[in-house]
């Protein structure tokens, strides 16, 4: 996969932590997944038929999950935007620092392409950062998908690619988790009138 495309995929992940609107964030994750699918297809030449199947699985993910998430935001309208604990620049700086640390501290993983390795690990960490930094349920869900995209980036870059069984299984699992999470988000919205996770926290010792 070209360095430029990998950089675009990384930047789209970083953008998710900055934007305010849920619909824009879903669009960014859809674009990221699409770029990943196209990049994977570009690598399919000279690889096995299994790999081609795995690439199509990624493209399907790029379409199915955003549709599911758009349906969710239509069912859970927010009366007003959830105010973030930190401003967009602070969030961006935090996520940027995380991505930079991944680049500096991560030893080689054996892929022979340090740019892809660093970008993939950075995306997993950015996904975790999104879950930590963003209060709306939907953004936390998007954080999971961004982390998943980081894993997919590394998986398609494995020489010969990962088995399609793993790719299809991972997509099935992710779709299942997203569906359950969407059901949670809807139920929580019914219960609280908002998807702000800050309003949920009543547990702890």
């Amino acid at each position, binding site marked *: 996969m070209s360095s430029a495309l990998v950089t675009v995929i990384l930047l789209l992940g970083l953008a998710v932590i900055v934007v305010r609107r849920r619909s824009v964030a879903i669009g960014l994750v859809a674009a990221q997944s699409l770029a990943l699918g196209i990049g994977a297809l570009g690598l399919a030449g000279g690889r096995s038929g299994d790999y081609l199947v795995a690439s199509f699985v990624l493209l399907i993910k790029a379409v199915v999950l955003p549709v599911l998430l758009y349906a969710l935001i239509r069912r859970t309208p927010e009366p007003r935007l959830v105010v973030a604990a930190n401003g967009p620049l602070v969030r961006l700086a935090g996520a940027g620092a995380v991505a930079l640390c991944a680049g500096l501290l991560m030893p*080689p*993983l054996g892929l022979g392409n340090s740019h892809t390795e660093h970008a993939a690990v950075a995306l997993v960490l950015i996904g*975790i950062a999104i879950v930590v930094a963003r209060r709306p349920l939907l953004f936390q869900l998007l954080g999971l998908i961004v982390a998943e995209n980081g894993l997919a980036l590394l*998986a398609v870059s494995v*020489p010969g690619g990962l088995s399609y*069984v793993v790719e299809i299984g991972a997509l099935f699992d992710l779709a299942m988790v997203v569906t359950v999470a969407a059901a949670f988000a809807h139920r929580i919205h019914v219960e609280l009138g908002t998807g702000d996770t800050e309003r949920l926290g009543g547990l702890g010792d």
Partner: protein
Amino acid sequence: MTDLVPVLVVLVPAIPLVGAGLALLARTARQADRLAMATAVVTAVAALILACTAFARGGQAALHGRWYLVDGASGLLLAVIAVVGLCSALVSPSYLRTSGRSWTTAARSRSLYYAALFVFWAALLAVPVAGNLAVVWLIVEATTAASALLVAFTGRRRALDAGWKYLVLTTLGLSVALLGIIVLAIGQANAGHHDLRALDWHTLRLAAHTLPKDPTLIAFVLLLVGLAAKIGWAPVHNWLPDAHSEAPAPISALLSAALLPTVLLIAWRVKQILEPSVGVGTTRAVFIAFGLTSMLVAIPFLWQSLPWKRLLAYSSLEHMGVIALGIGFGTPLAIAGVVIHVAGHALAKALGFYAALPLLRIDSDAGRRAPTGVAGESPTTAAAMGISLAALAGLPPSPLFLSELLIVLGGVAAGQVVVTAVAVLALALGFLGLLHALIEGVIGDKPAHRRRRPERGQRTTVALTAILGTGLLALFAAGVLLVNSSFVETLTRGTL
């Protein structure tokens, strides 16, 4: 008997999956209950036959197939999951009759509850026999979705919070574990192994010494850290107390007694396959670090007056730490202790969670504060709570007393004297905390404002207390025979 293994390996998870589908078709509550009971009994029988087949092979090498692997550890976990799953299914009608509120409409809630329970149970039963690391990961991820719905089954705000936290944190943890698996796949691909078989337990074990050391070390750490989030090891255990205390009691039992040790089995297998590349010292250090941290973090909570199920949740944190410590020591004595501990913890913890059902009926506030003087109101419930807590504390003749003793001796045999000393101190403090809860909760003073209510519908509690209590005693006796057995010797050596 081994000829049946390939068939049983498919049947064991398939039966509850079919049961889940049928539960959705049930038209009445009675029909759903009966269907669930029948499915549970057939599933448990099939799983126990498979477990017995694994046990009967004693110290022999694992059985391998294209998709499966059956060894002594599979047998142990299959037996645990079968027994706890069966008991949870048997007490579920009692829970559903009195649960009151649920996430969905009353008409659908029972069917959905059983469907999710059986999908969760099927996934749990598939993990110990799955022969491939990537496939195991996919199955564990599937347990998350099904069990998260069950954790939030009541639909109450706190349950939704617990379910959401569980879903997000464990999914993130499993993402980190998958990163470790992909790093392993890169190492295998560079060695010319490209297909799914490259990640078979058996293949990885054979290839471990050829894997590059540094990336494999990263893979090992990522896998362990990721799995730790699902096992509930400190410091990544935040979801555990909330999920265990907010889930329906039969589900809490499955989460604590079956899910946690099942995921721990994966961590144990990862240790076995990667040890030749990463080094015994490193793998041992990681397990001991997680084990000791979990035990130490649990202590302050075991000393607090916590609601019953929350106390049991923190006890799970302590016991998963004890098991990690035993695996970390890795000596035959410690491994014998691990085997007894996994089984003993499952029986005692499941009984404790089942006791929460009558406890909440006699004291509706028991979900929010520590119980006191239960014996004065319900001797049956008090007996179940007492046996469970005494066993979990490690009071002789609890099998956990024997297992902890073996793990401590195993630690000394491994030359880990300082670690063992800290562990003994942590165990003693944990013991005192649980003993205090036992005295206060069971035979302490009954609050003056609470009137004694007639005990109703206690037959299930009595039966489960008798069966699981007898099981605990039998395990103590069997545990003594386990030391120096070929079964433990093979587990210590590694069977993959």
